[in-house]
């Protein structure tokens, strides 16, 4: 399985989780939907940044050996 396929397969449960997790506490379905979509975007950016940083740390360690 390629990395692109793995990332694409990860997205549907991620979006569904964000949408439904926004329900408790929301006063209406519209508010939950808006909050869920906003959180999806926000958390996707955080997730991509984390994966990106980990990717470069892993590459650095592979090139230079472990830090200890």
């Amino acid at each position, binding site marked *: *399985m390629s990395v692109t396929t793995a990332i694409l*397969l990860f997205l*549907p*449960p991620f*979006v*569904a*989780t964000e*949408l*439904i*997790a926004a*329900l*408790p506490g929301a006063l*209406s*379905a*519209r508010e*939950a*939907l808006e909050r*869920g979509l906003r959180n999806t975007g926000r958390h996707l950016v955080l997730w991509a940044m984390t994966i990106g940083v980990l990717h470069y740390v892993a590459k650095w360690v592979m090139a230079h050996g472990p830090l200890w």
Partner: protein
Amino acid sequence: MPPTDTILIATWGLWLLAAAVAIGDPRVRRPFLLGLLVPGLGHISIGEKGRGLLVMIPVITLFVAGLILSDFRCVSPFDRHPLWGVLQAPAAGPTFLTWGLTRHLTLDHIGETYQVGCLYVGVACLLNLVGLCDLRDVCMKAARRKAGAT
């Protein structure tokens, strides 16, 4: 008793206890049972159509996608996959319906996306649990409002 069996029995016991507590409350009983049978239907039955669709569409889409990815073999709470079955219990209706319809299938080979399919169905069923918790909140708020109005 193997530790896996202990975990299985404890988790099924926990689900049954939680369901008994919810069903025991007459304010929640009918919508809770509907939501357990068809994700989102409990919300729709109390007039919360938007919330119901917000639960129903993602849960059913993920559930069906997971079944397709795993060749319709990932739902089997008591024989093929008892551990995944624990996660699938909160969407009892779709889980037991699928189990009944796919009981004759055997797990001859594990495809590339099989585990992803199991994960999709597990996530869908656990998301229905979040939907059921929200349903309980909505029912309790409506009951409090009604009690305050009279």
